[in-house]
């Protein structure tokens, strides 16, 4: 039952994703990609479990590496997206 429940979430999220993202204008496709990169850093939440386990040295090392990689995505992704979006200025907003 657990599996069915997870697949249920998966299917709904995919539909939602398609709906949301087809509304993003072409102008913002690069920030969309880097923002998506940041979101895929959500693996971090899973990496914690692995890195914090005590029973296996190897598992811990793998988990720590996973934490590092995922953090790169989260921190780098959000920062660079913000930097880019800060550049998009409207004419009215004194975008001279």
């Amino acid at each position, binding site marked *: 039952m657990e599996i069915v429940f997870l697949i249920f979430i998966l299917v709904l999220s995919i539909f939602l994703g398609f709906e949301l*993202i087809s*509304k993003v204008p072409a102008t913002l496709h690069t920030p969309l990609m880097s923002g998506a990169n940041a979101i895929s850093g959500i693996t971090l939440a899973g990496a914690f479990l692995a890195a914090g386990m005590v029973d296996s040295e190897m598992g811990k090392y793998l*988990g720590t590496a996973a934490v590092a990689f995922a953090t790169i995505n989260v921190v780098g992704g959000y920062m660079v997206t913000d930097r880019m979006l800060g550049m998009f200025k409207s004419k009215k907003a004194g975008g001279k």
Partner: protein
Amino acid sequence: MNIELLANLSYIVSAALFIFGLKMLGSPATARRGNMFSSLGMLIAVVAGLTAEGIVSYEYIAGGMVIGTIIGALAARLVGMTSMPEMVALFNGSGGAASLLVGWATLYGGSIETFTAVTILLAILIGGLTFTGSLIAYAKLAEVMNSAAIVFKGQRLVNSLLLAGIVYAAYMFCLDPQADSQWLYITLGLALLLGVMAVIPIGGADMPVVISLLNSYSGIAACAAGFAINNNILIVAGSLVGASGIILTNIMCKAMNRSLANVLFSGFGAVKQGKAIEGEVKPVSVEDAYYLFEAASNVCFVPGYGMAVAQAQHVVKELGEILEANGCEVSYAIHPVAGRMPGHMNVLLAEADVPYEQLVEMDDINPRIENVDIAVVIGANDVVNPSAREDEDSPIYGMPIINVDQARTVFVLKRSMASGFSGVDNPLFFGENTRMLFGDAKESISGVISEFG
């Protein structure tokens, strides 16, 4: 209240924030706040993740986070807008690597059911091929390696064998899922190899498709990792990213009038050559260009990757402002596959302070292109090549283009007469209303600006 329930409730909040953030990315006016919402969602998910049961040692986590933060923050600060595609390629790769490692580490967590073993394997497989595929994409974009397609005889056979090998190894692993199983290492090795093999036959001009696709894979890998560790938020966030990558891939393929399979499996160009083009190229001097600009009332810039290479976006914007002050209507028409990743040109022009209202899409400019006095093509080639419309033998026939040849006058800024990325000749250069402005794009435009003086 029990901690696990609290963590799951926080996940709901962060999922909502991700969705809200993506929704606000629908307009440049709200996009920045959307990104804030999304990062707030991430913060909540991370804090909730830290409280999960079973975490006893925080030193390793802290160590990993410090390393990741330093690398990520430095990369995000230092990267130039021109090299954004390389950066995104690397981020895709690190997302893939993270999912791979989470899947792998989960194997050390005790006994595993078959379903979990399958999802772990998927995380390792997709994560692994995203990782190496992205590294190759990076190397091609950064021109560390030759960006041309690498094709050899029997490539498909090799790849099919590789795929069969993966399926077999994966099956053997699932029969007896152990962390030290040799089949695990074989699968991992083959997946890493597959990533390399999948990206080398793809040429530089097709990079926008590959980056989008790898972006999607990194999301799918996160999804698989979510199944492996039974975590909702990974599944939700992963599938949002997966969907985003697929949509972008689809847009890119349409913009090149090619199927995904065609992009992935065949090197571009070499197949057949279109008609030879005859005609006369009409060069124009900077002074003459100035007189035409001075008299124009509607100017449209069409940028391509060449503009990024010449770093001409700032002078282009300066010229745009002068023209506007002169009572001229100025717009920037951007083809979906201009540049090396979706939206690349938009970011470069935004960096140069071009207001986003002036950035128009191909479908908006084409119906009114006849009213454009001067279309200025800067470092673009294939995306304005009329053969795509007229010459059925041309390799790019059928690709939607910006119809600059229908503008009253076309200026093409170009270093020399070499053909574009795809190696296809461009009849635009020989057109009746085309004037070639040879030389470095930045210098030519600066020249026109100083004429306005």
